[in-house]
């Protein structure tokens, strides 16, 4: 199958972006990640019109949805390149852009540092030994699966890298700590920080539902975190 791969490129944060198109002729069940690796393996790489092109900067680690590195906008939707396959997309033109909510580093690479800083701000750690209740095991397990890829933040109308709103990764990750923490004062502090960093800023648009590439039940964990931190249940 022949595909056109359109990539939004930018060599540095302070330069202008431009679009570059590449031709890919190969298996339709290839993932976008496999296509990008194939393009970067070409020596020399040329665009669809035969002009020389620089290797495409992007982040790719595990290729199997476990590391969250390869998050990007694929035909406008934030997804992991390793788990989007050409034959599942409409048409034969594939548009790749960097996530737009984070500072651009180069091409498809963005700086997601804010995401980790936000987790520090809400004190996402245990002070006590974990209290592990059997009936919350599945929810805590799901909470710990978060890839920190940023897809849920990319679609969120309330999140920006400059603002103080931490987005859906806060309730997803806070849940396990709220549930396990036995240190009362840390639990109180965590609840207050969670309220400020998430609850007060969430517009309840629920745009984060069904976007998680790891299929974490974001809405369920949000309900649970709100219940624990805000409604004290």
């Amino acid at each position, binding site marked *: 199958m022949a595909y056109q791969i359109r990539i939004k490129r930018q060599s540095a944060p302070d330069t202008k972006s431009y679009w570059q198109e590449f031709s890919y002729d190969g298996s339709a*069940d*290839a*993932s976008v*990640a*496999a296509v990008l*690796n*194939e393009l970067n*393996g070409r*020596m020399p790489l040329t665009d669809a019109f035969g002009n020389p092109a620089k*290797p495409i900067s992007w*982040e*790719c*680690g*595990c*290729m*199997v*949805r*476990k*590391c*969250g*590195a390869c998050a990007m906008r694929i035909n406008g939707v934030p997804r992991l390149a*390793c*788990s989007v396959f050409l034959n599942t997309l409409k048409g034969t033109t594939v548009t790749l852009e960097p996530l737009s909510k984070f500072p651009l*580093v180069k091409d498809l690479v963005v*700086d*997601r*540092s804010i995401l*980790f800083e936000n*987790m*520090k701000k809400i*004190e*996402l*750690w*245990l*002070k006590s*030994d*974990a209290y*592990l209740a*059997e009936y919350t*095991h599945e929810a*805590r*397990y799901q909470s*710990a*699966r*978060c*890839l*920190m890829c940023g897809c849920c933040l990319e679609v969120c109308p309330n999140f920006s890298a400059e603002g103080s709103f931490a987005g859906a990764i806060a309730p997803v990750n806070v849940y*396990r*700590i709220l549930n*396990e923490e036995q240190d009362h004062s840390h639990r109180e502090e965590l609840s207050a920080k969670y309220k400020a960093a998430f609850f007060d800023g969430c517009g309840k648009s629920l745009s984060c539902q069904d976007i998680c590439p790891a299929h974490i039940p974001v809405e369920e964990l949000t309900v649970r975190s709100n219940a624990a931190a805000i409604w004290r249940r």
Partner: protein
Amino acid sequence: MKKKIVIIGAGLAGLSAALQTSENGNKVVLVSAYPSERAQSVMAEGGINAALNTKGEDDSPEQHYADTIHAACGLADENAVWNLTHAAPELVRWLHRIGVQFNTSGIDEPDLRNFGGQKKKRTAFAQSDTGKQIMTALIDAAREQEENGAVKRLSHHDFVTLLMEDAACCGCVVRDRYSGERLTLSADAVIIATGGMHGLFGDTTGSLFNTGTVTAELFRLGVPMANLEMIQYHPTTVPIGGKRMLISEAARGEGGRLFAMRDGKPWYFMEEKYPELGNLMPRDITAREIWTVRQQSEVFLDMTGLAPDVYEKKLSGLAEDCRVYLGEDIRKEPISVSPGIHYFMGGIRVDAQHRTGVQNLYAAGECCALYHGANRLGGNSLLGALYGGRVAAQTACAEAESASKRAVSIQPSNAVLPCEPQDKAELNRILLHALGVVRSGDTMQDALTQIAGMHGSLPLLGQAVLKSALARNESRGAHWRSDYPQRNDAEFHKTTAAYYDGQTVHISWDAVPERR
């Protein structure tokens, strides 16, 4: 006075070292090219071994030790393995206390599953993504240390080279991947925790972030390596998009069966040949049997007999991965599998306290050679990384002291490109071909000639792997020579040491440390 320890790599070994260092009251600079969430450790699936003896099978750390030593075919450091296996139960209980979501049985005990090369149930697990679940809890613990200032992270920074004063390490140079800026970090000790040399081969189950370039640079600088020829092929992998996807050993631990078609009927060759452990023989043996059968016909892994609640509660990610990446429903159809490179038993040479050959330089995790000898047991890699990181940090905290406290003003001018971009794919292809499940002297000699003209530290490390494999004229563990199919203890019950003097790669033999 507080010591400053620089740790390179923020996967399981690096995080473990960071937590131990801060627990000892010292300061950590945790350098990594990517955040911990991206580390290869999150890809570990099946579990972590510890003789918790909660299954009424009369298990013990001594048996865990014996199984590990037996699988390692005589090349593991017995003292180190003794310490590792005896520390394991408390380490796993600690993981449980800090909130790792292990599958449990009974009221509050981590459940245990069967794993390769071990007769007793000894592998604690969290579904089929144990590595990810352990990493989340360690990242949470490290986050508190970041906030209180004990751990400073330099994420998106590459290791460039070591700073040396006389013969001792006194820090390193790192480079910001975003800005390109170089930073000189002086330190009392540097701990390397950068994972396996997957980038030498490309087509492995490992992360593409594990380029092997840190090990290559250290080798170029003269840091000795050990047992480089010992490369683990995981028996059950499948090709996806230019690399390989792992089908966890847990699939067989929970009842999956290997077979090939013979005379129109399934032939369960592992069960026939190895009645006791069957599909759960150690990985070197299973991989070789699959390789041999595959010379005639495809080999399949049959997981159709597993109960629905095993898929739901113990292997939930596996069926989904196979559906997404292979388009197959493993609950209904067997899948075709083949061996693929998965783990490096060899690497930076360390002693039982995780000291490298260079003063103030330590190594832990997959990048170092210590616990696994010629073949690693499934479930021992997470354990080795976790325990090794702690021991490396303890040793570093206890004894490391920078050679001098003078301001370091060394300008490393000679940092080389690890590999010319146009050579990388060729290097991978040549090494994969020459260092397969079964190897021969001729093929490896050819490979050595072919890569001789390539520049950079990565081809140099490739040379060292080939020369190590060529020097070991016998078959042992993961190293199988068609031209020397016998194990030869008289000549080769020894550690293969590789060293570069700036001109030539030297291979020599050292005695395996004796049990004290």
